């Protein structure tokens, strides 16, 4: 363990350029995926929350179940889509960061949609009468609630980021773990572990955990301050 700690500190202090490149790529890929998943998933979750339609319960159950999609299965499916032999092969984005963003977006979209659906539905219970009394239509109300519950939704988005930053199955398959191109923190840890370079792998792992903790702490602080200000 102490070997891992000193290796990690040495990497950080030295600001090893390859390490920085790997960390930045990891952040770029997972944050891009979260942004896309939020853009699509928040309105989807809100729409389901305020709507009534036949089969609604089934949709909710499926959406919740999809939160547990195994990353390696998503990786395999996206690979089959993006392979030259597959339907989207002509775009040529396999083994590039774009493919990794694509796969991770699919992975965390259900998380964002399902959790925001729950949050908005809870809020809808409180606000429905008042908003309808004011004359707001369902969809307009959904958008209003998305903004009103923004601090709870921050936690939802964080859950998505955590899942994306921590997964290795999807990015390994669709990215190919190419040195200097698609190598991220998790795939590097996997590689170093398989090479038997455990201290380096552990060191990288600690850095990854530290990043996730830092992002969570920042969001928690934001929520606390907002709660105090807005009630």
């Amino acid at each position, binding site marked *: 363990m102490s070997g891992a700690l000193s290796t990690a500190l040495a990497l950080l202090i030295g600001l090893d350029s390859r390490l920085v490149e790997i960390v930045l*790529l990891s952040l*770029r*890929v997972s944050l*891009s995926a979260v*942004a*896309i998943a939020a853009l699509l998933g928040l309105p989807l979750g809100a729409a389901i929350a305020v709507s009534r339609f036949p089969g609604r319960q089934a949709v909710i159950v499926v959406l919740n179940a999809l939160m547990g999609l195994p990353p390696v299965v998503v990786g395999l499916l996206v690979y089959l889509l993006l*392979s*030259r*032999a*597959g339907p*989207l*092969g002509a*775009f*040529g*984005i*396999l*083994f*590039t*960061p*774009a493919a*990794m*963003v*694509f796969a991770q*977006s699919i992975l965390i979209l259900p998380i964002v949609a399902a959790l925001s659906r729950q949050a908005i539905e809870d809020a809808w219970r409180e606000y429905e009468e008042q908003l309808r009394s004011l004359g707001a239509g369902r969809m307009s109300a959904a958008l209003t609630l998305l903004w009103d519950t923004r601090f709870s939704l921050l936690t939802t988005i964080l859950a998505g980021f955590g899942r994306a930053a921590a997964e290795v199955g999807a990015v390994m398959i669709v990215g*190919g*773990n*190419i*040195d200097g*191109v698609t190598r991220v923190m998790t795939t590097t840890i996997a*590689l170093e*572990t*398989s*090479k*038997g*370079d*455990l201290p380096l792998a552990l060191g990288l792992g600690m850095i990854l955990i530290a990043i996730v903790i830092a992002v969570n702490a920042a969001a928690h602080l934001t929520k606390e301050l907002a709660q105090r200000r807005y009630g």
Partner: protein
Amino acid sequence: MRRLLLVVGIAASPVGAQDKFIVLASTTSTEQSGLFGHILPVFQKKTGIQVRVVALGTGQALDLARRGDADVVFVHARSAEEKFLAEGHGVRRFDVMYNDFVLIGPKSDPAELSGGRDILEGLRKIRAAGAAFVSRGDKSGTHIAELDLWKLAGIDIAKEKGSWYRDTGQGMGPALNTAAAMNAYILSDRGTWLSFKNRGELFIAVEGDRRLFNQYGIMLVNPLKHTNVKKDLGLTFVDWVISPEGQKAIAGYRIDGEQLFFPNAK
């Protein structure tokens, strides 16, 4: 859909992305040996072409190329490569280099192999002693070579599974980790062994037998069958690898002063 992928692509592409690149499908053991880190920068400096290595097991690497997802394949399993060619997926096969396998074992050496140069004799001794042996079991080039050696030694290895013979289904690195943890014998390529840091009680028990030599071949993926293959860039790479300059770069790669790969392009 197209627009979404474009947005995704723009969001994810680094500033100043490489325009000239090829995708090379190769094996995990080759990449982990560090060879590519040594020779590819030389090639890129000369030609400006970036070689992006996707490292998988031999079978997977060839399957990747069969789907048209790679431009060049570089593996070390002669029979699988010939099959690949026969199916029309490759243009031509060239010998590039060979390295060797080594039989690794625990210092306690229950099969009493130490210092031997006969691999078949060594394998027979392991079976006689019932000493623990870890196999990759993943249909990689190394695994296929291992199975061939058991056959040559006259042993029906399928019968021994589960007792002293452990079939793990792992890559070279993880399998070495397992052998170190179990203090077992294992067949490894020299490159992975030299860079392997978690050795525990393991050392080289048998080496130098001609039957342990491992031949590498390179092929351009057939551009007639897979129209997206970067034919000119790929050919440039293949030609360079078998050229005197490329062969010299390969020979120049050392770990702890030891040469790993021996160029033998004709």
